[in-house]
C-alpha cells in the first residue's frame, strides 16, 4: 500500500497546481496521471488566460462579464473569488517562468477574447496551456517531495464506513499491477468528458473518469446539462481553431457572404459569448445559409500576416495539416463542436465536495464559475485558482487528520472486475470503439446546440442500451503490459455514466439558458429555473435535486451582446 497526506488524481493544470500548493504547505503529496503529465489535455489550450491585471481594468468588470457569460447560473461568490485572485495567479506563473507575451515596454501584453469587456487575456503565442503546463511540470521536477506516479490509471475511489474518502485503487499501466493508495484526502483533477461526443475538440483521454468515479461513490454532480459547443471547430475531426482568431479580428461569413453576426449580436459581433455565436452559426446552417459541408466560414485573412504568424501559429499548422487550407490566404470552414464540460463534481470555493476529504478542481469540478456558459480563457484560470485553493485546503485538512486504515479487499474487488473483462469471450460482445462511436454520434445529434424532448428521450434510450452492451464489451489484448484495450473498456463505463447524467439533466431543465437551448422551451425562465440541477447516484440511476444559485451583486438581466 502506498500512502500520502494528499493524493492528487490528474496532472493537468488543476492537478499540478494543487500538488504544488499542497506541497508548499508541507503536505506529503502523491500525484497520479494516466498519461505523462505534459501529455494532459491542458496542453491543448491555445488562446490564453484571463485576469484583470491592467490598472484600467477591474476584477469587478471581469466578474460581471463572467456572470453574464454564465447566463446567471454561475455562483457569484465563487466568480468573485476567481476574478479577484486572477492577477496574483498570473504574476505567480510569470515568476515561475511562463514566457508570457510582452508588450513594447516589456510588460505583460493582452489580447481580446469573447464575452469580455476589456482585452484581458494573457497568452504565450498560441501554446498558452502547454507553456503553463510545462512550467508547472518544471516545478514538479524541482520539488522532489511531490511523488509522481506517471502512467497510472485510477479505477475507483475508496470510502471508509463513515463515508470519508480514504484513497483510491490504481493500475500501473506499465505492468498492470493494481495498487491501493491510502490518503488523508484526495483531490480529483481528471479533466472533462468531451469524448462522450463525436466530434470533439477534446483528446481521446478526456473520458470523464473523475466525474464518474466521484458519482459512483455518492458525490453529487451539478450543471451536467451545460455542455459547451465551441463556435470554431473543423468539420469531421473537430479540431479547434482558437477564439484567439476572432480576438485578433477574424470575421464569420455564411455561404452568401453575409457577416451574419450582425443579426445576432450587433455590438460584440464575433466576440459575443460562445453559446450565442454557436447558436447563430447553427441557425445559419440549419436555415440553409451554410456551405454544403454543414459549415460557415471563418476569415482570418483580415489579420495582418505577421500577427498571424506571431500569435496564431498553431492554427496555421492545424489549417495546413488537417484541413489543407492556408489560413493566411483563404477562409477556413468551421462549425460549432463539442468543447467543454461546464458541469462536474459539485464543490465549494475550496474545492470540497460533499464527501469528507474529497476535493475536485479544474474541468472535472463544478464550483460553479462557468454556469451555463464558460467564457473563453476562464477555464485555465479556473484550474489554477481552484487547483491552488484545493491544494491549500487539503494540506490543512491533512494536518488535522490521521492516515486512514484501508483494507486491501477493495483491490481484490477491482482485480476481480478486471479479470472478468479480460476473460470475456472475444467473439461475443461489441467492441469498445463501436460503442464509443455510436455514443458520440447520438450525443452530437440530440444533445448539442439545439435540444428538444424527443431528441433527448431518444438519446437517453440509446445510452441505456449502450450501457447494457458495454457490460459485455470484449477486448483483444489480454496482457498486463500497456493494455490500452482494457483501459478503454473501463473508460467506456465512465463515459456512459457521464452521458447518462448529461441527458437526464438536459431533460430536466425545461428552459433555455446558456449552452442549454431547448427548442420546446425557448425562453430563459428565472422564476422556475434559476437553480442548479444536482444529480446523485440512487440505485443505478441519477436522482435529481436542486440547489440555489448564489447571487451577490448582480441581479439577472436579459443578456445582449
Amino acid at each position, binding site marked *: 500500500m502506498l500512502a500520502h497526506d494528499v493524493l492528487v488524481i490528474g496532472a493537468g493544470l488543476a492537478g499540478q497546481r494543487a500538488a504544488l500548493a499542497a506541497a508548499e504547505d508541507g503536505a506529503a503529496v502523491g500525484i497520479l496521471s494516466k498519461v505523462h503529465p505534459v501529455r494532459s*489535455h491542458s496542453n491543448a489550450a491555445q488562446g490564453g488566460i484571463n485576469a484583470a491585471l491592467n490598472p484600467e481594468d477591474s476584477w469587478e468588470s471581469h466578474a460581471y462579464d463572467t456572470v453574464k457569460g454564465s447566463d446567471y447560473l454561475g455562483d457569484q461568490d465563487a466568480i468573485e473569488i476567481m476574478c479577484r485572485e486572477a492577477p496574483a495567479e498570473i504574476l505567480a506563473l510569470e*515568476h515561475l517562468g511562463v514566457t508570457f507575451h510582452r508588450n513594447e515596454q516589456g510588460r505583460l*501584453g493582452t489580447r481580446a477574447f469573447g464575452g469580455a469587456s476589456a482585452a484581458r487575456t494573457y497568452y504565450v503565442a498560441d501554446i498558452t496551456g502547454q507553456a503553463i503546463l510545462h512550467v508547472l511540470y*518544471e516545478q514538479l521536477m524541482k520539488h522532489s517531495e511531490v511523488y509522481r506516479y506517471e502512467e497510472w490509471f485510477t479505477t475507483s475511489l475508496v470510502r471508509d464506513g463513515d463515508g470519508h474518502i480514504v484513497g483510491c485503487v490504481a493500475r500501473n499501466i506499465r505492468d498492470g499491477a493494481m495498487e491501493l493508495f491510502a490518503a488523508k484526502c484526495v483531490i480529483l483533477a481528471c479533466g472533462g468528458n468531451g469524448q462522450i461526443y463525436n466530434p470533439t475538440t477534446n483528446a481521446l483521454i478526456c473520458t470523464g473518469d473523475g466525474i464518474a468515479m466521484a458519482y459512483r461513490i455518492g458525490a453529487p454532480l451539478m450543471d451536467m446539462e451545460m455542455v459547451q459547443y465551441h463556435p470554431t471547430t473543423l468539420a469531421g475531426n473537430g479540431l479547434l481553431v482558437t477564439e484567439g482568431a476572432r480576438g485578433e479580428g477574424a470575421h464569420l461569413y455564411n455561404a452568401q457572404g453575409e457577416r451574419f453576426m450582425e443579426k445576432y449580436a450587433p455590438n460584440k459581433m464575433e466576440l459575443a459569448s460562445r453559446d450565442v455565436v454557436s447558436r447563430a452559426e447553427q441557425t445559419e446552417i440549419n436555415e440553409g445559409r451554410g456551405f454544403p459541408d454543414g459549415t460557415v466560414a471563418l476569415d482570418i485573412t483580415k489579420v495582418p500576416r505577421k500577427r498571424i504568424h*506571431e500569435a496564431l501559429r498553431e492554427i496555421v*499548422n492545424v489549417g*495546413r495539416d488537417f484541413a489543407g487550407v492556408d489560413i493566411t490566404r483563404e477562409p477556413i470552414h468551421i462549425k460549432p463542436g463539442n468543447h467543454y464540460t461546464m458541469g462536474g463534481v459539485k464543490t465549494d470555493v475550496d474545492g470540497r465536495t460533499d464527501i469528507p476529504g474529497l476535493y475536485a478542481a479544474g474541468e472535472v469540478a463544478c464550483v460553479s464559475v462557468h454556469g451555463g456558459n464558460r467564457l473563453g480563457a476562464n477555464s485555465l484560470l479556473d484550474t489554477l485558482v481552484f487547483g491552488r485553493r484545493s491544494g491549500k485546503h487539503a494540506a490543512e485538512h491533512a494536518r488535522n487528520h490521521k492516515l486512514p486504515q484501508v483494507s486491501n479487499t477493495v483491490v481484490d474487488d477491482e482485480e476481480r472486475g478486471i479479470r472478468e473483462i479480460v476473460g470475456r469471450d472475444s467473439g461475443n460482445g461489441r467492441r469498445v470503439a463501436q460503442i464509443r462511436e455510436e455514443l458520440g454520434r447520438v450525443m452530437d445529434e440530440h444533445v448539442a446546440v439545439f435540444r428538444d424532448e424527443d431528441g433527448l428521450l431518444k438519446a437517453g434510450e440509446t445510452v441505456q442500451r449502450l450501457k447494457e452492451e458495454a457490460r459485455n464489451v470484449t477486448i483483444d489484448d489480454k496482457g498486463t503490459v500497456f493494455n490500452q484495450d482494457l483501459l478503454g473498456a473501463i473508460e467506456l463505463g465512465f463515459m456512459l455514466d457521464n452521458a447518462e447524467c448529461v441527458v437526464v439533466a438536459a431533460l430536466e431543465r425545461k428552459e433555455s439558458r446558456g449552452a442549454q437551448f431547448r427548442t420546446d422551451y425557448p425562453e430563459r425562465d428565472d422564476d422556475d429555473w434559476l437553480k442548479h440541477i444536482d444529480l446523485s447516484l440512487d440505485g443505478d440511476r441519477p436522482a435529481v435535486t436542486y440547489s440555489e444559485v448564489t447571487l451577490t451583486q448582480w441581479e439577472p438581466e436579459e443578456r445582449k451582446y
Partner: protein
Amino acid sequence: MPDYSLKIRRYNPESGQPAYWQQFDVDLAGCSCQAAICGSCGVRINGMSRLACNTKLGEAAEDAPNGAIVVEPMGNMPVLKDLIVDMDAVHWKKVQRVVPWLLPEGDPPDREYIVDPESMIDITQSMACIHCGACVSACLSMEVDPEFIGPAALAKAYRFVGDPRDAFTEDRLLDLAEDPHGIYDCTHCFACIEVCPKDVAPMNQIMRLRRRATSDYGIKDGNNGYGHEKAFSDLIEKYGLLSEAQLLPKSYGDGSLIRAQVKPAALKELTAKLPTVIRGLRSGKVSPKTALIHRKLKDQDQIRRMYKEVESHEDRLELNLYIVGDSDAEEEGTMAEGGQEG
C-alpha cells in the same frame, strides 16, 4: 478513405518471444490529442521519426518500400511494447540533467519581470517542444554516444539560458560545455531539425548555446570544443565547405524549419545560425546561388538583397525563425514555402 498496408513492428515482453513484423490493412490511429499537440504518438515511419497523428498515409504510402508503410518504435530508447518506448529512461532523464527550472536571483518583483519582448518570443521556440522524442530517436550523436544530453534536453536548456529572468546563465553554460556529452557532442547532422514536428530546431538551440558559451562568456571547455569549432570554421573560411552549405537549402528551403518568407530577417538568422557557411559565401568559395537557392526560391534579386543585408550587419543576430513575418512582409512571389512534413 483508401486502405493502406502497414507493416508494424510488434513486441510483447510478456510473450517471451522476440519482436516480429505484422502486416495490417488499417487506418493509423493516434494516441491522444490527434492534433500534434500532446507528443504521445512518436514512431518511425519508413525509417523517419515523426508523429503518427499528423502523418498522411497517402504520402507515407508513396515513399514506402514495396507499398507497405513500415512502422517501428522510435530509436535510441528501449522498447517497452510494440511501438511504445521508454521515454523516462532516456528522454526525461536527460531533461532532468539540464536543471530544467527557472533560477531567478532573489525575490520576485511585485509585478512581472520586465523583459525584452523579443527574448520571450525567442525562447518560446524551445517552449514549443512537446517532448515527443522524435529528435532523440533520430539523433546520430546519441546513437554513437548514448550519454549525449541530446537535442530535446539541450533545447530545453536554451529555454533557461535564453531567459533573461534566469540568474545562472554562465553556470549553466559552463556545465553544458564541460560535460563531455554536452553541447560539443552534437555533430551538426540536422536530423533533429528535420524531424521536429514543432519547429523547435534543436540543433539551432545547441548552436546558440555554443555561441553564448564562447562569445559571451569566453568559456573554453575541457573537451576543447571551442578550439575544435574555431579550427573548423577557420578551415571553412579558407576553403569553403560545399557539402555543409548544401545542407542549408535542404533543411531550410524545404520548409522543415522555415515555411514562410525567406527575406532579410530570415537571412539574418541563417547567418547567425551557420556562420561557417556565410564565411564560405564571403570567401567566394561557395556561391550564394549554390548555397542558398532552392528551386522554390527563384527570385535572384531577393537573394542579392539578402546577401547585402547580411554583409551590412556587424553584430551577431540572435533572432530566431520560430515566428516569422515582418511588417515589410514580402509579396507572394518571394515565398520560399514548402509543406513541412506532416
